[in-house]
C-alpha cells in the first residue's frame, strides 16, 4: 500500500467573474522515503495541490490519504515549508523553532532538546537567542527547515523553498535539505519551476500541464543521480541530457494552446 495516495483530485476556484478549474482529476501515489518533485509552468496548480495535500485546502472533489488515513485538516503529520522563511520577527530563533511543538501542545523538555540538537546540526546554535532580522536569508531558511522538522512530520511539503535565495545559497541549502531528509528518512514533495533543482533533488518528477492542472508526464530520475548530493548531481555527465529531455517537454506544454 502506498504511503501517500491522491484520489481523483479536482479543485475549482470561485470568483465573482468565473469558476475556474485549477486542478482536474489528478491521481498519483508516493511510497515511503521517496522524494517527488511537482514541476510545471505557472497556472498548473502545483501550489494549490500542495495546499490540498497538507489539508490547508479542501479539494472540490477527490481525497488525499496518508498511511491510509484521510487528510481533512493540517496537523503534526505534515511539515510545510514556504517560499520564504516567514519566521516571526518578534520571536527569537529558538522560539521560532518551538512554534510547531507549542501549537501541538507538545513542548516537552525532550522535544526542546532534540530541536536544539537539530539547530546545532545546521550550525545555528550560536544564533539561537538572536532575532530573525539579524540573520542572512540562507540562515533564516535553515531555521525554517528546523522549525518544520521539529514536530517530526511524516511528510514534508516544500513549496519552492529555495526560490527566494541567491544561487550560491540555494545550492548549499539544496545539499543540506537533501542530506537532512535522507538522514531522517523523510518522504517529501517539492514544488518547483526549476528543472535542474527537480532533477538534482528528487527520485521522481511529476510534470504538470496548466489550465487545468493535470499530470502531463512522469519522469524517473536515473538511480545514480538519485543517490548523489544535488550539487554533485548537477555536475554529473548524465545531468544535462535529462535536463534537455524535461526542458523540451515543459516547453511544449507552455506553447500548446490549451
Amino acid at each position: 500500500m502506498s504511503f501517500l495516495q491522491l484520489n481523483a483530485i479536482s479543485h475549482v476556484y470561485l470568483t465573482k467573474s468565473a469558476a475556474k478549474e485549477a486542478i482536474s482529476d489528478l491521481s498519483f501515489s508516493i511510497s515511503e522515503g521517496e522524494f517527488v518533485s511537482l514541476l510545471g509552468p505557472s497556472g498548473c496548480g502545483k501550489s494549490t495541490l500542495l495546499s490540498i495535500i497538507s489539508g490547508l485546502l479542501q479539494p472540490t472533489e477527490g481525497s488525499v490519504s496518508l498511511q491510509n488515513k484521510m487528510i481533512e485538516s493540517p496537523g503534526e503529520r505534515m511539515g510545510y515549508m514556504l517560499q520564504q522563511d516567514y519566521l516571526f520577527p518578534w520571536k527569537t530563533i529558538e522560539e521560532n523553532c518551538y512554534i510547531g511543538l507549542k501549537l501541538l501542545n507538545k513542548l516537552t523538555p525532550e522535544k526542546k532538546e532534540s530541536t536544539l540538537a537539530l539547530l546545532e546540526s545546521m550550525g545555528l546554535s550560536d544564533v539561537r537567542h538572536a532575532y530573525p532580522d539579524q540573520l542572512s536569508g540562507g540562515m533564516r531558511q535553515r531555521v525554517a527547515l528546523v522549525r518544520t522538522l521539529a514536530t517530526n512530520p511524516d511528510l514534508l511539503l516544500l513549496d519552492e523553498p529555495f526560490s527566494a535565495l541567491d544561487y550560491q545559497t540555494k545550492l548549499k541549502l539544496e545539499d543540506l535539505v537533501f542530506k537532512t531528509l535522507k538522514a531522517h528518512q523523510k518522504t517529501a514533495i517539492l514544488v518547483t519551476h526549476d528543472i535542474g533543482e527537480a532533477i538534482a533533488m528528487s527520485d521522481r518528477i511529476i510534470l504538470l500541464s496548466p489550465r487545468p492542472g493535470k499530470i502531463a508526464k512522469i519522469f524517473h530520475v536515473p538511480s545514480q543521480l538519485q543517490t548523489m548530493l544535488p550539487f554533485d548531481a548537477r555536475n554529473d555527465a548524465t545531468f544535462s541530457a535529462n535536463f534537455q529531455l524535461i526542458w523540451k517537454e515543459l516547453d511544449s506544454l507552455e506553447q500548446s494552446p490549451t
Partner: protein
Amino acid sequence: MNNLLLKKQHQQYLKKLKREKNEIVTWQIFILFVFLSLWELAGRYTWVDPLLFSYPTKIASLFLTKLQDGSLVLHTTVTLLETIAGFILGTLLGTLFAAILWWSRKASRISDPYLVVLNSMPKVALGPIIIVALGPGYISIITMGASISIIITTLVIFHSFHTVEPNYIKVIRSFGGNKKQVFREVILPASFPAIISTLKVNVGLSWVGVIVGEFLVSKQGLGYMIIYGFQVFNFTLVLLSLFMIAIFSSIMYLGVEWLERKLIKH
C-alpha cells in the same frame, strides 16, 4: 587601514554627530527664549493687550500662587486621571472591538456602514446626551475621553489585523493551529506597531474629550479652570491651564514612546 586610524576616524565621526546634536538643541532653546522674551516685552509694554494675552512672568507667579493654595494640584490631578482612564478605556475597548470584527467576517461586513457614520460624526457633539445619561460627574467625562478615540482605534487596529501577512497565518495553520492560536501568535504581536501608533493619536484625542467634558459640566479640572478663567475674564488662568495641559500631554506621549521601545524590539 590600521586599527589606530580606524579608531580615530570613528571618534571624529562621533564628535561630528555630537556637534550636530548640540547645534539643534541650542537652536531649540534659543527659539524658546526669544519667544518668551518677546511675549514678556509685548505684554509689559502693551504692544498686545495684556488682559488677553498676559505674559510669562505673570503666568509664572499665578502658577506659584495656585501651587501654594493647592488648587492647581487638585485640578491637574483630576484631569490627568480622567484623561488616563479615558485613554486606556478607549484603546482597550477599541482593540477588543477590532478583535471581534476580525473574528467574525460577517460582523465586520455588517457593522461597516455604522462604523463609517460613527467615525465621521464629531463625538463631542454627544457630550450633552452623555452628561444627561450618566450624570454630571467624572464618569461622563471619562466616557467622553474614551468615546472620542474608540471608533478610530477600532478602525485602525482592525485594518492592521486584516492586513497581517497571510503567510504568517499559513505557518500557524500548517501546524494545525486554530483561530485563537492564530490570533495570539500572529495577529496580535504583528499588530503591536499599529496599536502603539494609535496610542500616540489617542493621547491627544483623550485630552480633547476630557477637556470638552469639563467645559460642559465639571466643578474641577483644567477644563473647568479654562471656563472659569474665561467667565471672569482672567486669561492668565486660561493660559496657565493650557501650559499644564501641554506639559502633561507631552509626558503621556513620551510615556507611550517609552512603551514602544519596551514592546517593539524587533
